């Protein structure tokens, strides 16, 4: 079997790993300096403001084009999730109201809960 230290593939993988570690360590050292913080925050402040303006402009553009924006789509998805949750609550309530007269589907919200009687393996001698 080839010696790992002479395996070109292993050497390449090792080199990538070492380069990653080395670059991260070097960059982290540089990022600890106050100068870095100063520059990043100057640039970051400007770009956050610009991003906000661009976002606002895009929002107006999409409204004019009669198209939904990303925020509206995300909000729609969350509302759907909320409706789903409410439907689940209604379903659970309906099952309760009917007093489990009809056998609920396995795993449905109204399925009977297991008893809260479980003991730890050491106490009950149950194998893990």
């Amino acid at each position, binding site marked *: *079997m*080839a*010696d790992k*230290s*002479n*395996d070109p*593939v292993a050497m390449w*993988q090792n080199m*990538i*790993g070492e*380069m*990653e570690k080395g*670059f*991260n360590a070097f*960059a*982290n050292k540089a*990022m*600890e*300096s*106050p100068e*870095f*913080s*100063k520059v*990043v*925050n*100057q640039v*970051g*402040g400007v770009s*956050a*403001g610009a*991003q*906000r303006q661009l976002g606002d402009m895009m929002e107006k553009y999409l409204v004019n084009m009669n198209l939904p924006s990303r*925020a509206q789509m*995300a*909000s729609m998805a*969350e509302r759907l*999730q*909320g409706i*789903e*949750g409410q439907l*689940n*609550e209604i379903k*659970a309530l309906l099952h309760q109201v009917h007093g489990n007269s009809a056998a609920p589907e396995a*795993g449905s*919200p109204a*399925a009977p*809960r*297991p*008893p*809260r*009687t*479980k*003991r*730890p*393996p*050491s*106490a009950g001698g149950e194998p893990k």
Partner: protein
Amino acid sequence: MNVAAGLDLQSIPDRIQAEVQRAIQRSIKGVEYFASSGPSLGSTPKDILHVRGTMNLYHYRPVSDEIYRVPILIVMATTNRGYILDMVPGQSFIEFLLKRGYDVYMLDWSAPKPEEKSLRIEDYVLDFIPDCVRRVQRDSGETDVTVIGYCFGGVLSLLYGSIFADGPMKNLICFTTPVDFREMKLFQNFSDKRYFDVDRLIDSVGNVPPEMILSSFEMLRPASRAASQVQLWENIWNDEYVKSYRMFDRWAIDTLPLAGEYFRQITKDLMWENKLYNDVMSVGGRKADISKITVPMLHGVAEHDHIVPYDAAKPLIQKIGSTDKEEVILKGGHVSLVAGANAIKRLWPKLDSWLCERSI
């Protein structure tokens, strides 16, 4: 064996053949990678118990014939989605807990809307968590609740536990939870008071955009994204590697925005003034002193955590008032501590053995 070169000459043709095969597989799988969607995540069956704005409370359907008396409420970090704890069957912390007989609830977050920019730490600690705890009590019929907080979810759980020290929290488990924010050195430098104008930022953007949160995480290890893509290409013939890569990559980039006021408070109270560590933290005028927490407590920390370095998390075990308390330092990083192969063999069994005796 060629001793001089340390190379087995006979193995070279086999090696070349294997590499050619892999190169062919890379081309085929590479096309598949871009043509297919990733694995479905967070698919353990659950019911949505309650949704209010950014707050979502789930109940996972039990799978055991009998369950432990005390239910678990997991409080997720506000920067990320809760499915990191429910990746795919066989690699899901939630599934693991259910199979071990726990009754599991999760407080997960969705992106705060622009109108939620005024949410403050008070809303999370004095409203969202207590509301979810009440709902867990009502749904389970039990008074006691075990709280598990991951990363900043751990900080929120600590604040909640210290203000509501008389109950109903029965056990507290924190994963990689920072207490001494001075020790989060790079984040400290990013938010250096002299140059970082948090008021100007929040006043101009409202909620902190997810791209900003993601880039601040990625800046901690700037070479890692490029290196991981090289590794992906090398391993693209390996279906298991690709599946795992896609799961973690999708989760990592699925960062949430943060409510503006909440971020402003975190920056000022925790990053700048280190109030939690200095025992002067208060939430909505109520003192949050973690020495008031006396319930059994387990803190899981990672040896190579680049987001919450060990020195930032270490004081928790000293400061908390509990007498029944334990810190476990495990191999791994901020994410691999709680999810993936490392967590399956290290953290999860440890948590189960600690919690089962305290859940009856």
